[in-house]
């Protein structure tokens, strides 16, 4: 059984129009089905507006889809009873793109990271602090950072704190919604390495949502391409992706920037 199964999910946003009789329906997701196995990373590629983030929200249980179901560890997350939902949420975590708006600016790093622990685990103050310190060390920060506030961290450091919070309960699946898109190259590769390490250590699964092809391929086992709410194809390897003749994939391939000035390609 797969860890996560997405079955024929449909969702559209309703935009109410002033002085118009009919509301306009914007189809955000149409008939999406795929699954994520334990310990695997599925990448989702798409341009902006393709429905990547909506799909992320649907899987997280934040946005109830109009049709279809999400099975996480065999339970339908939108129709489970309260207790099951609570248990499922523990195994399902998220890291967003904007690290600063994902934390409470009035909490210290220690409180930010220990919040999930407070909710789910009965630990003494000392034990909790020990856990938080080991989590900080896992993401290459140190004990000194415990008492710092979000504004005292750089974007990359704060993103690592978000990751520490996400792994604090040893979840099964983490949804990474553009988590490495707004940080610089060096930080990006640090975070990607960190994520790969965590995947090995804890047997984590990821849903890696991004528009960055290079980042997607460096971490994912399978890549899905999303365009206008439709899942066009799942690709199991780079070769499969690069030999695909689908127009959307072709356009993506054309937009990849050269890695060396000798291979300048965008002006042809």
């Amino acid at each position, binding site marked *: 059984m797969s860890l996560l199964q997405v079955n024929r999910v449909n969702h559209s946003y309703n935009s109410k129009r002033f002085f118009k009789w009919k509301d306009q329906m914007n189809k955000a997701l149409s008939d999406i089905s795929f699954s994520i196995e334990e310990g695997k990373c599925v990448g989702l590629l798409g341009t902006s507006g393709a429905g990547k983030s909506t799909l992320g929200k649907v899987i997280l249980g934040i946005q109830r889809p109009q049709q279809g179901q999400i099975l996480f560890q065999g339970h339908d997350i939108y129709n489970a009873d309260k207790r099951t939902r609570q248990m499922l949420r523990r195994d399902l975590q998220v890291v967003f793109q904007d690290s600063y708006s994902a934390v409470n600016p009035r909490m210290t790093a220690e409180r930010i990271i220990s919040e999930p622990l407070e909710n789910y685990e009965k630990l003494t103050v000392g034990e909790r602090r020990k856990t938080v310190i080991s989590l900080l060390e896992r993401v290459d920060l140190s004990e000194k950072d415990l008492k710092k506030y979000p504004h005292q961290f750089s974007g990359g450091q704060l993103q690592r704190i978000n990751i520490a919070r996400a792994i604090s309960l040893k979840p099964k699946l983490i949804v990474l919604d553009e988590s490495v898109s707004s940080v610089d190259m060096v930080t990006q*590769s640090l975070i990607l390495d960190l994520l790969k390490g965590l995947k090995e250590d804890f047997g984590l699964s990821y849903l890696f949502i991004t528009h960055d092809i290079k*980042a997607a391929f460096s971490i994912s086992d399978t890549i899905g391409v999303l365009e206008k709410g439709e899942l066009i194809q799942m690709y199991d390897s780079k070769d499969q992706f690069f030999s695909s003749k689908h127009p959307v994939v072709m356009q*993506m391939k054309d937009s990849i*920037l050269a890695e060396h000035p000798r291979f300048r390609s*965008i002006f042809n």
Partner: protein
Amino acid sequence: MESSKRNILNVKDLHVEVKTKDGMSTLVKDINFGIEKGKILGLVGESGSGKTVTSMSILQLLDQKNMEVQGSITLQDRELNGLGNKEMRGIRGKEIAFIMQNPMNAFTPVFTIGYQFVETIRSHTSLNKKQAIELAIDVMKSVNLPEPEKLLKKYPFQLSGGMLQRVMIAMSACLHPSVIIADEPTTALDLHNQLLVLRLLDKIRSEYGTSILLISHDLGVISEMADDVIVMQHGRIVEAGNVFELFDNPHHDYTKKLLRTRPTLDYEHQPITHVL
């Protein structure tokens, strides 16, 4: 001195300090570079390395009460450092245009694109409103923006980020500035929009002979666009040179690290030549 004569923009011994409660703290130090006409100079470095401070000091946009800018910044032999606000206002937008990372914040949300376009044009020229609109439409057509007349009537929030960035570039190009400073122009955009914006910048460079200071942490953008590259770290220039030389044969450890750590895709069309 021969080469510095040809340069449109010259920065010499730039040194920026900021007042803190523990005394002065240096932001950037010993910055020297020049841009020739019609060339693109790439400025690379991780966040916090002083890229934006450098560009802000060229435009004299730093807070003059708390910061001290030393050194010389010359635009076509005219000293900019220390120039008053009034004179600078005549230069910003007309001589040096600035493109920011987030186009959403660069526009005022309560006015239409057309209003802001016309305002920019009329504050620097003696055109009347009708002529300004015509000029705006002309420029937008020449950079392949679809339906310029309709675009001008829209508000910034009605357009996508990529579209807004292209409008921003059209706006900055319409007065034919001699230098455009593009600070991370494509970081907030998806791949396809990135491509469109980069093509547009290149078109403006070749059509109007504008020099571009392209600030980016994305080495892909730099390798596609730049003629020369400066690498910054901790507020200093650690390496500078021709883009081919720098990619083939990086000298400084930091440059090597930058080239090594970026994610790569090795597939047949783009062989990786510099696995270090």
